[in-house]
């Protein structure tokens, strides 16, 4: 065992990681799933959705940004934390217009899959039904539906760090915060390409590719039979 090894505990189970890892990264390797929406393998941690909230030595922290440290006690799968995560997922549902039954992403959507995994049948908060979210379908191969955006910044980070392009960035603040594109208004006026990583990483149906709708039928999609996080839990020894 190298001197970089760090030993700590998640829900009473001893976990080993290497210095510099986040709690989420070390948990993934150990086969322990911590729910997430904004975090994505290969992208810099962002820390916006907060569904990865865990308790570290009794204090709330986001597992995707918090580095591991020797001897820390992490709580992940407690009823208190599950309830907080349900509340956060609920908030994301009521904040936008998520009509899963009409959405091409249904079955492949991480927000929907996480809601199922957490046992949410219907949100407990009232829907806000925002009327100011539009759709930009100007690009020939890709469209953005702002009704479904959860402001996770995966597209921002992927475009900047993986595609080297900066197609996306946030504008506005507070409840008026939105994703914008690097042109006066339209996606078609940017240098986005359908093969860009930025298009692929969107966890919900906000950035979608045209011309391929329903090529995999509902019922045979990624989360239709296996819950979100199952791939990580398969790492468990």
């Amino acid at each position, binding site marked *: 065992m190298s001197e970089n090894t760090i030993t700590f505990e998640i829900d009473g189970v001893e976990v080993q990681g290497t210095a510099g890892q986040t709690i989420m990264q070390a948990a993934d390797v150990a086969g322990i799933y911590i729910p997430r929406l904004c975090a994505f393998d290969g992208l810099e*941690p*962002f*820390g*916006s*959705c*907060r*569904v990865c*909230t865990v308790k570290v030595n009794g204090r*709330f922290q*986001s597992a995707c*940004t*918090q*580095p591991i440290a020797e001897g820390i006690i992490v709580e992940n799968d407690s009823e208190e934390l599950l309830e*907080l995560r349900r*509340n*956060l997922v609920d*908030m*994301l549902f*009521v*904040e936008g217009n998520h009509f899963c039954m009409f959405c091409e992403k249904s079955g492949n959507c991480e927000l929907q899959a996480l809601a199922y995994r957490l046992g949410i049948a219907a949100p407990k*908060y*009232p*829907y*806000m*039904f925002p009327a100011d979210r539009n759709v930009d379908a100007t690009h020939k191969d890709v469209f953005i539906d702002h009704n479904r955006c*959860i*402001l996770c910044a995966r597209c921002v980070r992927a475009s900047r760090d993986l595609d080297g392009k*900066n197609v*996306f*960035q*946030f*504008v*506005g*603040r*507070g*409840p*008026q*915060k939105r994703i*914008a*594109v*690097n*042109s*006066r208004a339209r996606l078609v006026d940017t240098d986005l390409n359908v093969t860009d990583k930025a298009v692929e990483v969107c966890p919900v149906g906000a950035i979608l590719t045209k011309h391929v709708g329903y090529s995999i039928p509902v019922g045979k999609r990624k989360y239709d039979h296996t819950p979100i996080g199952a791939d990580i839990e398969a790492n468990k020894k």
Partner: protein
Amino acid sequence: MSENLESVVKTICEGFSNEKSRMMDIVREVQENFGGVSDDAMDLIAKQVQTPRVEVESVVSFYAFLSKEQHGNVVISLCDDIIDRMFGFERIKGVFNEALGIDVGETTEDGSITLETAPCIGMCDQAPAVMVNNEIFTEVSGDTVTEIVEQLRDGVAPERLRRRLGDGNNSNPLVSAAVSNNIRKEDEVIFAPLTCGNALKKAIAMSPNEVIRDIKTARLRGRGGAGFPTGMKWDFTRGAQGEKKFVICNADEGEPGTFKDRVILTERPQLLIEGMVIAGYAIGAEEGIIYLRGEYNYLRPYLEDTLQKARNSNMLGTNVMGKEGFNFDIRIQMGAGAYVCGEETALISSCEGLRGDPKNRPPFPAQKGYLGYPTSVNNVETFCCVARILDQGAGWFSQIGSKGSTGTKLLSISGDCRRPGVYEVPFGIKMTEVLEMAGGEGAAAVQVGGPSGQMIGPDDFERTICYDDLATGGALMIFGPKRDLLEVVEYFMEFFIEESCGYCTPCRVGNVLLKQRLQKIMEGKGEPSDLAYLEDLGNSVKSTSRCGLGQTSANPILSTLKNFRPLYEALVKEDQPFQPTFDIQKALGVAKGIAGRSSMHFAE
């Protein structure tokens, strides 16, 4: 695209060496020159500093003082704070509406004057207050409004508007503000007479580590709200790896009800500068930044002049006060209307020319702050304490106040009291004593520490002001028995919604949901279960938010549910009639408009 725009934008960008980290200064100047940062201007700036255009828009759309839309040459901002609402906001708004013929959010037909509102501009002790571009008017009456509008109509520039100058340096030609200091009580740390340079001389005669040791011995804790031990913060910053280090003074003072830093900046800027130079010496920094809130722009010429005088007397510059190898200078960074920028990592983002989003921690600013270098961010008052500690001794300082909270504290007192203003008091003072001093004995409630703090009632007035009991950055808002406290709570929630950066889910969404449910209760439509809903939701926002704003934004509701529960209980009742959460007629509005008839299935 006008040639003028092109050449002016180019000149402005070049003035900041086409440096994107100076984006705040660039867009502020463009806004000042053209009344807005238009699409054309954003394209030009992006090209000139070589950054994606959307990055420019990202900054412009974040700050309240910046806008894509064209504003008038004159922007009138009415301070819409809760205290201003109590002392005549609606009345003077009405007079402005009438005199200008426009509503808030509009610009006069000739395009010359825009009317806006702003959250607390730091004048609660002299409400109602109004900003006309950079000029501030306080205790504004209907007559003052008429007079201002008449002069503006006659083409008088805002800086030449007639005004009654305030006391002290408010009358200094470089300030010339109609603002009062209202210093009601002076004590020995902040408002004692000043001997410039003594503290710094003593500091540079010691080693940096000895200076930090003195600050630790004095047990100085931060005055900005969080109360972190200053010596410890400096130790971390000094010990961190980095080619360069920075000292930042947090003069954002955005917490509604707080205005004591404004008075320090007006009357004791020399003390602040001295404290910053000492900090630079202690942590090994050569550069300091004063982050000044946009609302205090009227103090800028005076502060620039004070910095220049410090340079002339070698308190700033190379080999400061003859100390070989110790160089230090300070620049002012203007903010542009964002409360969250008082949060230290958001403040750093803003200094770097970015949107004022807080950063993920760790790394903490002491490890990786401004431009990635170790940085110590401290409050205005904290730096002043530092200078006094070095001058008068750590032992002297630690004798003042109480055991866990040494020294004095400046309080900003406003609301229902006879003597609103700034009070310097030793830590450990009782709330009853404070209320007596301020002439607010009949208070029904006191908001301690601004909206992010807590509201307490008479049962708690025997408690003391210090870090271990009633901790506060200094704001005390007093509410008399006739005030509707839930209206106050509602205003505070509006404030947080307006000021949330929107980065994280709980703060962006949760605060809106909290306010909705509070309003339902205030309308008499609430049920007892709504109180549990507020508590559960409030605690979720508190527990999962990413920065101090969201972690405290539910406090107005949570603290009143705890301390003033009967107010809520009186409004809720069991078995309310069915209340739809969805307005079908509103939803059908667009379709009905297109069809030109009402729905066959959903009769109105």
